[in-house]
């Protein structure tokens, strides 16, 4: 809740500041919330933020409006570098008004958060992966392995912040059992299990007194041994369901309706000047529902000279849709790496698409820190195949390649149960993201791509 309030407050900053530093500011807020617990530290945090908003907002708007600081600063005569600064004029009336509005908003937010903290002892934890198979591709299964040799169900983890040695031991038991049962490399599984036990015996887990930091610690211990970035152990403050939601006709109908209302998240399909195609796609929806929309979009762009995929707000989706779109971009079948699926015939694109003229057209992809999962698979493969130029920010680094295994009501782990061939190297985008070829703030990516596409088109004519 407090994070949401702060993310709303960030909207008060100019768009350019938000696009470049919004995520960083939010991350800094998360870090402080995580580290500054208790009533008074939290009160101090919100007072700091209130003061910070009041001071920095007018400055940022002045910067945005007048763009004074972008000019270079001449060196001082003695060779000492100098620093540019805006003069201290008295604030404008609009700045004062804005400051007033911000103060009221911030104070309300502060009071709301404080009352929430006092009443609920809010948790700062890794959010659990949701079991929406359509959105993430994760499969969730309750884990009998979590209670080896026992028929009694695992009880819920008690209140947040009271993690003791017995509970830690129980979670480690569950993790070791899951690794043993599901991890594809038995030798590594054994080594990871041994490492988890050894760290526990050595007392290295004692410092983790809250569930979230304990989950991160176990993740790190497993990765230290396996170097497998797809392996993950997470804590959810809200209870995890026993079973993943079943695919029912009602759910399918809801999904169909949502896709109809959003044009299957094909947000924009346009032809820009110089016959450059532009497709803003905000997810990779299920082809079972959205194939015709995808085909229509690609058909509309069939005669463009270059194509720009805008994936800056794309949070991923179905690998089948990723493959379907990619198929249009090649004139022969190519291997398309998918960390969720073992290598098979399905790993190759069905290229060429009869009648498609996009197989040799220049491709540009716009990325942001929010580009994730399936969208990163699209970016990663096209970059590695040297088929696209990526422009924007490094992507989120969410591979979502593990199958979700429930340990108990609050802990679970993602275990990669496939070993697909990655022809581009041992590591993919998990945790590190996909680096763009041209790094610019996400807000400037489209303009940069258009200019580049136009320049390249002129060159080839």
């Amino acid at each position, binding site marked *: 809740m407090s994070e949401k309030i702060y993310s709303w407050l960030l909207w008060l900053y100019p768009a350019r500041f938000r696009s470049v530093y919004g995520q960083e500011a939010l991350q*800094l807020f998360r870090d402080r919330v995580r580290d500054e617990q208790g009533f008074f530290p939290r009160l101090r945090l919100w007072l700091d933020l209130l003061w*910070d908003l009041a*001071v920095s907002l007018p400055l940022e708007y002045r*910067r945005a409006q007048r763009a004074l600081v972008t000019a270079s600063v001449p060196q001082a005569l003695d060779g000492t*570098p100098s*620093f*540019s600064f*805006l003069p201290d004029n008295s604030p404008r009336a609009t700045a004062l008004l804005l400051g007033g509005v911000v103060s009221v908003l911030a104070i309300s937010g502060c009071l709301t958060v404080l009352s929430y903290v006092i009443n609920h002892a809010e948790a700062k934890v890794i959010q659990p992966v949701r079991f929406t198979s359509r959105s993430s591709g994760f499969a969730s299964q309750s884990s009998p392995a979590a209670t080896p040799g026992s028929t009694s169900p695992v009880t819920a983890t008690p209140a947040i912040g009271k993690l003791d040695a017995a509970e830690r031991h129980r979670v480690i038991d569950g993790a070791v059992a899951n690794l043993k049962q599901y991890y594809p490399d038995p030798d590594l599984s054994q080594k990871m299990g041994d490492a988890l036990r050894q760290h526990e015996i050595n007392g290295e887990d004692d410092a983790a007194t809250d569930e979230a930091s304990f989950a991160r610690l176990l993740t790190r211990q497993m990765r230290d041994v396996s170097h497998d970035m797809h392996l993950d152990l997470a804590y959810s403050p809200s209870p995890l369901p026993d079973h993943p939601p079943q695919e029912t006709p009602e759910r399918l109908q809801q999904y169909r309706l949502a896709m109809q209302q959003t044009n299957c998240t094909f947000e924009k399909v346009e032809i820009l000047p110089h016959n450059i195609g532009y497709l803003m796609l905000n997810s990779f929806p299920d082809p079972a529902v959205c194939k015709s929309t995808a085909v229509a979009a690609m058909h509309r762009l069939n005669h463009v000279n270059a194509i720009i995929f805008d994936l800056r707000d794309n949070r991923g989706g179905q690998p089948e849709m990723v493959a379907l779109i990619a198929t249009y971009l090649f004139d022969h079948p190519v291997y398309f790496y998918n960390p969720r699926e073992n290598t098979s015939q399905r790993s190759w694109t069905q290229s060429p698409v009869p009648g498609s003229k996009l197989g040799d057209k220049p491709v540009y992809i716009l990325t942001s820190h929010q580009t994730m999962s399936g969208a990163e698979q699209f970016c990663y493969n096209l970059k590695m195949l040297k088929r696209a130029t990526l422009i924007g920010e490094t992507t989120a*680094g969410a591979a979502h390649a593990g199958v979700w295994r429930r340990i108990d009501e609050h802990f679970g782990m993602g275990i990669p149960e496939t070993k697909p061939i990655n022809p581009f190297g041992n590591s993919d985008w998990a945790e590190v993201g996909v680096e763009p070829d041209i790094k610019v703030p996400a807000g400037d990516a489209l303009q940069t791509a258009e200019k580049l596409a136009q320049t390249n088109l002129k060159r080839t004519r």
Partner: protein
Amino acid sequence: MPKQKLNPLPAAAFQILLSLTEEDLHGYGIMRQVAEQTRGRMRLGPGTLYSSIQSLLEEEFIQEVESPPSKERRRYYRLTPSGRKLARAEAERLADLLRLARAKKILRGQHV
């Protein structure tokens, strides 16, 4: 409105430069380092911090670098040679002020 060159640096910018003298840090790392080196007197909020970082980046007193391989993926910042020179010049200016203050006997004791 003309730009005005100021000496000294804004306090926040100077503290950020000082925080980066020993290692590359991300935003939160800078905030913590500044709080530590000022004994908690200065806690940079996100707006002030990133506004100052933006100014320092634009003037190339710091630069953005890749996260160290062993660390989590974030934007890290590094002091440039001109940034180090600027920090040193500012420190010398403050030292001169301090010497003057001592000469005028407005400080007690040998150390401040």
